[in-house]
């Protein structure tokens, strides 16, 4: 399932950089390590004398391993974007699928951000702010830094400040 069957005009939808998978993997790993550590401590202290002793440690480990091994690949495979002359479209998610379209003239300002993990794996996140109250911030992670800067420059041409 690397492509969604219902997406329109597939050639125009671009995938993001494969490096983004690694960013996600490390993020998930850190997240689940914390959960697993907490579960283990809870197990050792609270459940030691009950019949559930050892259960959280193993169960959380299994869930965490499954999550870290499978989720990043899937999230990556379902994240696409498209930049046309007038629109930026970001398509993501499967269980909760969201297909966001932002007209470029509606963009208020743009950020390109890079965290430490993103720097290591050579990707950047494009953050587009609109005046909206709902989804006023649209993020597009996993872009090559050059591409992110390029998109930023394209959008910048369209940025206006009036609302009317």
């Amino acid at each position, binding site marked *: 399932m690397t492509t969604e069957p*219902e997406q*329109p005009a597939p050639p125009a939808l671009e995938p993001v950089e494969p490096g983004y998978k690694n960013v996600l993997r490390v993020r998930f790993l850190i997240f689940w390590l914390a959960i697993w550590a907490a579960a283990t401590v809870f197990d050792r202290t609270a459940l030691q004398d009950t019949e559930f002793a050892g259960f959280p440690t193993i169960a959380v480990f299994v869930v965490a391993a499954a999550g870290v091994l499978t989720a990043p690949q899937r999230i990556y495979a379902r994240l696409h974007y498209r930049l046309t002359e*007038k*629109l930026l479209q970001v398509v993501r998610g*499967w*269980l*909760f*699928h*969201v*297909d*966001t*379209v*932002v*007209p*470029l*003239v*509606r963009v208020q300002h743009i950020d390109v951000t890079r965290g430490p993990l993103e720097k290591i794996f050579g990707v950047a996140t494009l953050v587009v702010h*609109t*005046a*909206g*109250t*709902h*989804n*006023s911030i*649209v993020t597009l992670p996993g872009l090559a830094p050059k591409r992110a800067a390029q998109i930023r420059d394209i959008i910048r041409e369209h940025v206006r400040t009036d*609302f*009317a």
Partner: protein
Amino acid sequence: MSEPTSLDDAAVGPPEHLHPLFLLTGFAGSMRGMVGGYAGLGYLAVSGRLQTALFGAILLLLFMAAALLLYWKRFEYRVGENEIRIDSGIVNRTHRSIPFDRIQDVDITQGPIARILGLAKVKFETGGSAGEEVGVLQAILLGRAQELRTLVRSRRGQAVAVVAGMPAEKIPVDTPPIYAMDLKRLFLAGTFNFSLAVFAGLFGLTQTFGDVLGFDPFSRAFWLSVLSAGGPARDFIIAHQVAAAVAGAVLLVLIGIVTGVVRTVLTDFGFRLDRTGVGLRRRRGLLTRTDVTLPVNRAQAAVIATGPVRDRLGWRELRLQSLAKDEGSRGAHVVAPLASDEEVDDILDQLGWPPLPPSIGWVRVSRAYVGILAAAMAPLYVAAIANLVLVPPAGAAFVAALLAVIAVRFLAWSRTGYAVDGDRLLTRIGWWRRRITVLPARKIQSVDLRESFVSRLFGVSSLQFGVAGGGMTGHSIPAIPRGEARKLRDRLLGFAT
């Protein structure tokens, strides 16, 4: 004090303080902000340490007074040639400058105490992220507030010279208001504002504080003891159980109506909407009088709300979603609490928006709107059945509640739809709280097309529109067949770009 510019710079203007009486009016505000402190004191007092509690209370008061005095002393504003500067902060100083060009409007609010003292709170509306206290002068003289408003408007080069130099209360009233509420209308609106919130509040109190009152009117025992006390009354009630139930219901309705009327009179007394150079000017309020101008070109969307009864009688409430934020919690500006269709059209006309077409060709959303909810509640069915087996009465109530939820959703479905009227999107939702939203396509900031694993089974998506400002529950259309949703999105974005 390290000011960013020298003190006697003419372009910046002389520093001004808040009115000294702010020390009085501001006290009420900081009293309200100290809820946690009261809880602590209350605990101390209840647990018998009265002296400690008293000492704490005095300390708290001193602390508040000192904080207030420091705030007042360290708060300065200057009215310059092109901007207003506000320097504030006791320890961390903030120097904020708000260019006149960026100020959308100046809101003037007067609470009851402030009205007696002739003070007003001034808020400079900027287009920026709303919600923050960006530019609020807590208490200055009303006259100065109106001067500021006039100044800001004239500096922005808007055609509001008519208002210049005139105190707000004495604007010539030759031009009749676009919309105003007389007393009759006010009370009618209050009746529709029927609310049993009082009971919810009472219920919450008795649940939280147990028998602070010495009795619990929500327990059976209380009523049994009340009834057993008076012989004749009890006999009467038992003999006329139906009559008693009816009387109780009537009382409930009466209390609900009175609550609604009181609330409405407090907020909407003397409601008046005028057309001014920049936009619509709204004045309302009995104790706290507010005076707000909504610039016409900042209006993002309109909501026409009504209920089943009001709808039948032809009454609507009109709210505007604007970039300027309301002082209240609602987020949207009520421009007409109770208006007829013609009055709504008049107000829309003042915004430069065409009236709603007399008959709107609503496209209904998919029946899946009901199905999705029914499917999403699947885990509850298991619980309901288990209940039915184990505790039949509770289980029956549970099942009835689930059925009621689905029935309500079905009623809502029958009224949920959308229509494209020229270059704007009309959406209609709700059966009990009926709403028609008018959203001009060029005000759409972004569009989300959403699917979840449940809605995918039904082949439907929901559309969610990002619109600037306002705190409304968002603009969305639930459960449209996938293909239609895409078509509608592309069509609306075609207008938007």
